[in-house]
Structure formats: C-alpha cells, structure tokens
C-alpha cells in the first residue's frame, strides 16, 4: 500500500544547502533561546527592583514569581512543543494504525501507549480514530492504551511540568502516564468487552486507505514544529499567564499550614478528591499546572498533585461525551473506573515514595 509508508525524505529538496539552512537556522535559534533563558533571572530581578514595592514584602514576592515564571514557562513550553511538532511529523494516525493492526495484547499495549505520545491526535478525531483502529483489527484494549496515552502524555503537560516543577517530575509524569495507559488498556482488553461497543461500530466496513505518499523534507519538519508552536502556544498562552498570576497570589499570600493540611501527604482522602476535581477541568489544563506548582511550594504532596493533573488530562468530560457515540455507557464506566484506579495508585505510590 502506497499510502501507509512512513514519510521519506524528498531527494529533490533535501540537498546539502537545504540541510544547512533548515538545520542551521533552528540550531542558531536554539543558541539564541539559551542566551535569553539564562538572562531571565537577572532581568526579572532588575524589573521587580524598579517597581514601587517594598522589597521582601508579599507583593514583591508575588511579582518576582510572576515576572520570572511567565517568560520562563512560555519559553520552555515553546521549546517542547516545537520538538514534539518535529517528532510528530514522522508519524500519522494511519501509520500508527498499520503498525498496531493485528498486534497481540501486551506488546501491543506498550506499542500503542508509546505511539500515543508521538502520533498527532486531537480529541475531535477520537471517534474516527477509534473506529479506524478497531475495524482495522487493532485489539480493543490496545486501542484504549492509545486513547489513554494520547491526551494524557501531551506536550503542553510535559512542557509546563518541565518548566515549572523540573524535569524529574516531568519524566515521572511521562513514565507513570505510560504505565497507566499500558496497564489500563491491558485490563480492558482482558475483560473482552467487544460486545459493549455501540452495535453499529462492528458493522463499519473500513475503506481502503489510499492516501498519497507523504514525502517530507527537513524544511517541512521544521515548519511542522513551528506550526505546532504557533497553534498550541497561541491557544494556551493566556491560560498559562492567568494560571501563573493565580500561582503568584498563592505564593505570596496563601497560608502554608492550611494548604499542607488539605493537600499534604497526611490527608489520605486528598488523592481521590484531586481526581474528582480534575475530571471536569479539561480545557483549563494549561492554566492549572502553574497553580499546581504554587501548591507544591506550599506543601501539597507530589502524588496528589500528579493524580490531579492526570485526571485533568486523561479523563476529560468532553472526550467521554464524544466517545459515547462508539462506546456504550457501561464501557465508558469501565474505562473511567480502570483509568481512575490507575491514577489513584500512582498518586498514593508517589506520596509513599517521595517523603516531603
């Protein structure tokens, strides 16, 4: 099949000159990026010092946090989104489907969850993707592994965690997000719930995939990365700033003891509560992470916070409503229950492993 071959470099466009320009350009931009990034702390300090506020006051602390974190986070987010955009230009839902079709469970779940991170995916595509996967012979549980990982381990969550809380937490989020997607998909697959799909789904006859070859040159991949930056950062930057503003208020004003009592390790019920609150908050994921970072600084437990974030990204109400078209209510309930159980387990595990 011509359509499903992975994109190959276009000989015509990828001459030495094109490589020089399209590799050299981004590298130069990266060096520039690094320079600005390193200059941020003194710059923000200088700016806050000029403001008419008492040094060391609550207000000064909140302002310093805001003026340092906003550019820092937006820069890191742009970098992660760009890199992810380039990586994703090597993948497509159709290719991923071809890779997963007929895969056995187990290996298939691992492959599906991993591909879920790098395959371009938007939640409005969830239904065509689901039908396309299932009717092409991708096992149901493997399809679920993909559908759990794709929205949960996304570039916005990773970029913001990396920028605000540091790379160990971002990597933990990545690893445990993958683990949840793999295990939850495997469990759902073991339950053999094919009968709980909407009846029409099994009758769908998949047409032959006849997409033309996508031959991408390095130029197209750099452009894809840049387009991802303008698309995604353009969509979320306002939420990020709003989130950082709220985070700055928490930093400067919220009493540490009260917050630690509610969201700290001591309160066992905080993990399920975080999941419950997280589910309906899908669209504001970008604004929530800066707030979460401020809460961490005030003594909230890392596991509780991670569970909250995973609930925000993995279990979104709008996506459930969309998936209702292909899944029966019972299957959606199983899906939510299995994923929520995984998130709870990760939350408690983290609180157990990482002593404050």
């Amino acid at each position, binding site marked *: 099949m011509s*359509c499903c071959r992975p994109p190959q470099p276009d000989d015509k466009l990828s001459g030495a000159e094109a490589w020089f320009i399209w590799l050299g350009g981004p590298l130069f931009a990266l060096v520039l990026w690094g320079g600005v990034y390193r200059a941020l702390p003194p710059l923000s300090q200088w700016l806050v010092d000029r403001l008419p506020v008492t040094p060391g006051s609550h207000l000064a602390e909140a302002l310093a946090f805001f003026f340092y974190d906003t550019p820092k986070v937006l820069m890191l987010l742009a970098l992660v989104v760009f890199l992810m955009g380039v990586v994703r230009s090597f993948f*497509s*839902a*159709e290719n*991923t*489907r071809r890779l997963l079709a007929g895969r056995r469970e187990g290996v298939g779940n691992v492959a599906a969850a991993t591909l879920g991170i790098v395959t*371009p*995916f*938007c939640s*409005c*595509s969830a*239904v*065509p*993707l689901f*039908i*396309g*996967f299932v*009717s*092409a012979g991708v096992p149901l549980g493997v399809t679920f592994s993909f559908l759990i990982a794709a929205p949960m381990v996304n570039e916005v969550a990773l970029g913001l965690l990396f920028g605000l809380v540091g790379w160990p937490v971002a990597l933990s989020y990545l690893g445990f997000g993958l683990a949840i997607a793999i295990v939850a998909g495997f469990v759902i697959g073991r339950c053999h719930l094919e009968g709980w799909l909407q009846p*029409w789904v099994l*009758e*769908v*006859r*998949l*047409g*032959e*995939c*006849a*997409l*033309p070859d996508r031959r991408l040159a390095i130029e197209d991949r750099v452009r894809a990365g840049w387009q991802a930056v303008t698309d995604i950062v353009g969509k979320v930057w306002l939420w990020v700033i709003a989130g950082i503003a709220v985070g700055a208020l928490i930093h400067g004003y919220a009493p540490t003891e009260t917050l630690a009592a509610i969201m700290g390790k001591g309160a066992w019920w905080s993990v399920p509560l975080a999941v419950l609150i997280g589910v309906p908050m899908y669209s504001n994921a970008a604004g929530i992470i800066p707030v979460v970072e401020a809460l961490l600084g005030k003594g909230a437990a890392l596991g509780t916070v991670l569970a909250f974030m995973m609930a925000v990204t993995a279990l979104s109400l709008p996506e459930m409503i*969309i998936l209702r*078209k*292909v899944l029966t209510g019972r299957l959606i309930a199983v899906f939510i229950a299995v994923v929520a159980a995984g998130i709870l387990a990760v939350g408690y595990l983290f609180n157990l492993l990482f002593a404050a």
Partner: protein
Amino acid sequence: MKDIKVLGSGCKTCQLTAKLIRTEAERLGVDIRLDKVTDYAAIAGYGIASTPGVVVDGKVVHAGGLPQAANVATWLTS
C-alpha cells in the same frame, strides 16, 4: 468541476479546512462542489483514522490536521 468532500465531525479544524478550500478555489478560479461528510461510518468508509480528511474526485488526498494552502492549490489544479 471538482467534487470535493471534507470528512470530519464538524469541529473547528474541519470548518477551517472547508473554508480554506473555498478560498483557494475562488483565488484560482476553480469550479468546485464542496460537501461535508459528518457521518462516522461514512468517514470510516474512506479508510482514514484522523480528521479532517479531504477527498478530491473520490480520492483521499489528506487526513489529519489543517492542510497547507499550497497543498490545497495542488489538489485543485492537478
């Protein structure tokens, strides 16, 4: 006259895709007939797994994400 179908649930990107095709067709002076296919079973019939998809004269030329204007022009003129 080119027969064009935009496959998708009617999300924002699908609408933008349809709009882009109309604009490009007008710019190039190409006569088109544009239909939106929103039925999921019908979309699956075209074999794609991501939307929006674009079908020109019965052939799938695009799947997933907003297409680039240059590509749209190529579909319309070839």
